[in-house]
């Protein structure tokens, strides 16, 4: 087990390094640089050129990359080319909101999806199963921005029950700000997750040893908890890890519509303004988080359903 985690860690480091290079190359390919982005109709081209030199943007790409990489290895994520402040500050400022949103969504989605999935799985093809399946199918077919636009128009603009944006608001004083964004994020994730749990439950229920156990008279509840749930959870956990992907995609749309100063927005802004250190730094944080989540999911699955192949 330890060598497995070790293997994954080594792979992760390689992945991160390659990713950093890829991101740097991509941003370097974009037209214009951060000095160009500062252009307004008050700074002359000479001032812009001077700024470019000050920011070190006229040095060769390889030198800039190795300089950045060296800094990262000592824990320094560099300074933003646009604001002049540490990239770490930008990371800290933007991670908070996105983290809260994602955690709040997960806190609701996981129990809800598991409950729904087991409910549907244990009553396979029954009326309840078919109804919920139809609803989840329909809901997962609507793009999140459509859901968001409709919810905002209805609950904020027409009815005025919920705040339409996060402008000037603070989660500490006004937690109700979470309701609409989380509702939008819930939509598709709950559908996808519950269907995976349902599939896992059905497979588990049909497994030979479960059928045997039932024949042997093992009580239903113990059956569910001890035997079905762990197996049902495996595809669910894997889907959960993949949910990170959809969630982060949904988060970008949600952040844009509700004016939430989150991670995804900071990343896209960084690209728009060619703030290379910020893009590098945020991508690194994102990749590390994703890798950790995937590793965690694999380890959990391994624990739930030990399989010797994983140890290869």
């Amino acid at each position: 087990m330890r060598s497995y985690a070790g293997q994954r860690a080594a792979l992760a480091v390689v992945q991160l390094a390659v990713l950093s290079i890829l991101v740097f190359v991509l941003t370097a390919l974009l037209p214009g640089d951060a000095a160009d982005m500062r252009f307004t109709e008050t700074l002359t081209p000479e001032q812009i050129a001077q700024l470019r030199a000050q920011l070190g943007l006229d040095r060769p790409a390889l030198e800039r990359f190795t300089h950045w990489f060296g800094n990262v290895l000592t824990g320094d994520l560099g300074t933003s080319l646009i604001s002049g402040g540490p990239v770490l500050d930008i990371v800290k400022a933007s991670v908070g909101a996105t983290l809260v949103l994602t955690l709040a969504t997960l806190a609701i989605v996981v129990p809800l999806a598991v409950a729904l999935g087991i409910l549907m799985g244990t009553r396979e093809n029954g009326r309840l199963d078919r109804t919920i399946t139809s609803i989840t199918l329909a809901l997962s077919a609507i793009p999140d921005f459509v859901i968001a636009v409709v919810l905002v128009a209805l609950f904020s603009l027409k009815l005025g029950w919920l705040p339409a944006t996060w402008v000037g608001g603070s989660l500490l004083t006004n937690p109700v700000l979470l309701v609409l964004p989380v509702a939008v994020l819930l939509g598709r994730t709950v559908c996808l997750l519950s269907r995976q749990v349902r599939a896992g439950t059905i497979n588990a229920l049909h497994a030979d040893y479960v059928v045997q156990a039932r024949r042997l008279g093992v009580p239903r509840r113990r059956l569910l908890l001890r035997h079905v749930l762990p197996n049902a959870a495996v595809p669910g956990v894997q889907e959960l890890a993949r949910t990170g992907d959809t969630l982060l995609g949904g988060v970008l749309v949600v952040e844009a519509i509700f004016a939430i100063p989150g991670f995804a927005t900071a990343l896209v802004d960084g690209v728009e303004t060619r703030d290379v250190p910020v893009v590098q730094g945020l991508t690194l944080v994102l990749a590390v988080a994703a890798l950790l989540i995937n590793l965690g999911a694999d380890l959990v699955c391994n624990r739930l359903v030990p399989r010797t192949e994983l140890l290869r």
Partner: protein
Amino acid sequence: MRARIPLALSALLVLIPLLVAILGPLITIDVKPGLPYEKGGLLGTDGLGRDVFSLLLAGGRTALGMALGAVVIAYLIGGLIGLLAASTRHRWVDEALIRPLDVLLPLPSLLVISVVAVGWRASPLAITLAVAMVNVPTVARLVRAAALDAASGPVVEALRMQRESWIGIHLGYVGRAVLGPVAADIGTRITLAVFLVASVNFLGLGLSPTAPDWAVSVSRNREGLLLQPWAVLAPALLLVSFTLGFNLLADRLVHRTRRLVEAKR
């Protein structure tokens, strides 16, 4: 087993937007440009005074075409990689093909597409390629797994002993065996691709803001929602109709495939 939702309904949900997307640009309606967000005409006007109905006819090509094109490309490239990786005798070839794709896995797709869209603005080709690339790793893995299943079975051994050509075995039999899981996957993949492309266009990062594309329309005409809702609702309904219909059809397919597998047991 009674069908859950009639096949005809699902097919209709898919076909209507599809037909609009394909045939729409061929129909020209002569409508004089009007004032912004006015009711009147079939569905009123949008933020620039253009007739919403005419825009609907023109907007499906990018909305659906980019997504479908991306999925096709993803399957062509990913499928090829997956088949090659699965059918090679040399393990290092397999590793060399698959491992690099893992690098992109940690990155969320919308973010990758957004970055590309910001750089190569208003280029449908760039976005289509980006969406395809983002899907290649998963498709490759899927095809490789299915192909491995088939390639290690007795049928392939038999074919090999009969001196069937490498292509005949791997692209013929194995290729066909892979089609099952591919068909099961393609439904969700197309839906996700439509969402991805639509989200990028919605965020204003992709196509030009005056493009007739359905997702761009939903985004640009949001501010006039209370004045003239059809400018938003019409394209939104077409998008949702397509993805809903596709989801239902894909679900039937999965259901049917699973029953076949169970029946075989």
